[in-house]
């Protein structure tokens, strides 16, 4: 990945009445990456994105997108960026092909949208009115509309909200394909799993501020959140034997359930080995890797709520 910043945000601030929606937010998005902004609803993600898109005027700070000021060069910028808005709709009776044909005409330069319909799996729906599309189909149409002018960066705001898990996974593949075509993707989501699976770098946002920004792996590693091995024992169990293992940090027991906390890739092997050699009978063994949910919890002391 080249490290050329395509979006630069410095000390962004946006206030609604007495509520500070975005408070001194600074970050950069690099060309060719999938950049994710994740956080609970109301954290300020959408406000941040809409300031970058030039749809809202910041109260403070400095933004550059593709070298342009989104507020002053809004029209020039919008010809070069793709936008999918949160919770947007089109006119009920507008057909899929008409929407693409219409939106293509708004831009000085646009791509042939027929192949786009194909790629997004909408070819069979080309004559279907917007109101008759499923949630996933509507979102795919909005992606198509965001791509119809061959933008350099695409903004996807809460793309998978309201979709079932299967449609959500299909959407992830689409986002990877968009990046595969050399485009930069900026997405917001309140699904930690989505950010973790999809994004090259993630900014965790909470109460208007970015509280962490790095690759998902680094965020998880940096916090030193431990891996867990969980199992159930039948009969006698020597707790000390496990605590002494080099990768193990601590052991908890809740009745027959045992949770072993530790670091390093060898943790599971070590634990299983120790149990086998000591002749301990165990079952239901599984491992739990820390994820971004744990990172959020560790940083804020709160659970991410849906």
């Amino acid at each position, binding site marked *: 990945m080249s490290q050329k910043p395509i979006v630069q945000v410095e000390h962004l601030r946006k206030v609604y009445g007495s509520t500070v929606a975005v408070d001194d937010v600074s970050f950069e998005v690099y060309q060719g990456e999938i950049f994710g902004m994740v956080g609970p609803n109301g954290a300020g993600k959408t406000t941040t994105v809409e300031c970058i*898109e030039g*749809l809202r005027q910041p109260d403070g700070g400095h933004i550059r997108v593709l070298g342009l000021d989104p507020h002053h060069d809004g*029209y*020039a910028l*919008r*010809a070069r960026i793709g*936008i999918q*808005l949160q*919770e*947007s*709709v*089109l*006119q009920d*009776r*507008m057909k899929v092909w*008409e929407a693409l*044909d*219409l*939106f293509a*005409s*708004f*831009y*000085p330069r646009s791509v042939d949208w027929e192949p786009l319909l194909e790629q997004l799996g909408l070819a069979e729906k080309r004559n279907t009115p917007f109101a008759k599309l499923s949630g996933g189909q509507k979102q795919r149409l909005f992606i198509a509309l965001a791509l119809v002018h061959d933008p350099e960066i695409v903004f996807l705001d809460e793309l998978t909200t309201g979709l079932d898990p299967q449609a959500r996974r299909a959407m992830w593949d689409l986002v990877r394909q968009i990046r595969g075509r050399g485009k930069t993707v900026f997405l917001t989501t309140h699904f930690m799993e989505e950010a973790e699976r999809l994004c090259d770098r993630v900014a965790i946002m909470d109460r208007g501020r970015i509280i962490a920004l790095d690759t998902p792996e680094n965020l998880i590693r940096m916090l030193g959140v431990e891996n867990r091995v969980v199992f159930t024992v039948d009969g006698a169990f020597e707790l000390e034997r496990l605590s002494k293992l080099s990768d193990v940090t601590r052991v908890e027991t809740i009745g027959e359930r045992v949770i072993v906390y530790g670091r390093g890739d060898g943790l599971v092997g070590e634990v299983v080995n120790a149990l086998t050699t000591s002749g301990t009978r165990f079952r239901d063994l599984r491992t739990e890797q820390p994820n971004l949910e744990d990172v959020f919890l560790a940083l804020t002391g709160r659970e991410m709520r849906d």
Partner: protein
Amino acid sequence: MRGFWKLTLMETKLFLREPMAAFFTLAFPLMMLFLFGSIYGNKPTPFFGGYGSVDVSVPAYTAMIIATSGLLSLTIAMASYREHGILRRLKATPLRPQAILGAQVIVIFLMTTLGMALLVIAAKIVYGLRFAGDPLSVLAAFVLSCLSFFALGFVLAGLLPTARTAQIVAMVLFYPMIFLSGAMLPRELLPESIQKFAQVLPLTHVVTLLRGLWIGEPWRDHLGEVGILSALLIIGILISARTFRWE
């Protein structure tokens, strides 16, 4: 500009696909024409100053179409476009705001004109509609009336928070107005006190202006109506420029 014309064409198609809007603008006035035409015919009568019932009804129905377009179609469309984020989505493209709103105005104007044209053609063919005025004068008065009512529609769309409330308020204003202004029933049938009261309704002045010019009365007899409708247009633009919201 290509985007603007595409949007105008698209909005025209959408208007014609919307059965309610198309019905009230295009079909309902014809139904009124044939209903009352079949009852009263179009024989000249002193009651209508030597004209027939159809002759005085066609300019009045035209006023009704203008009110339907400005108060109902435009208000409800704009309020629902805003509520559903369609205006926002259009604004997230390089389209200029004036192109987005201009397309709406052009479409609604074209549909109003089409409604009037259908009415005039049907009345001419079926009832031998009489016309004693200057076509350009009537057209000018039609354009002024349309723009005034569209401005009113934008004011309502700006002030009312949702499509639902916009629809209710627009209906509450629309129905008394078309009955009391003489747009739907000849005002000669209304008691004098109601005719007096109806002077506060903007639509009354549209009916007076169009009926007057239709039978060849000069502009100087209608400076009052022109003044009121122009004022409505200017005030409407000033208010909606301040209150119109995109989201």
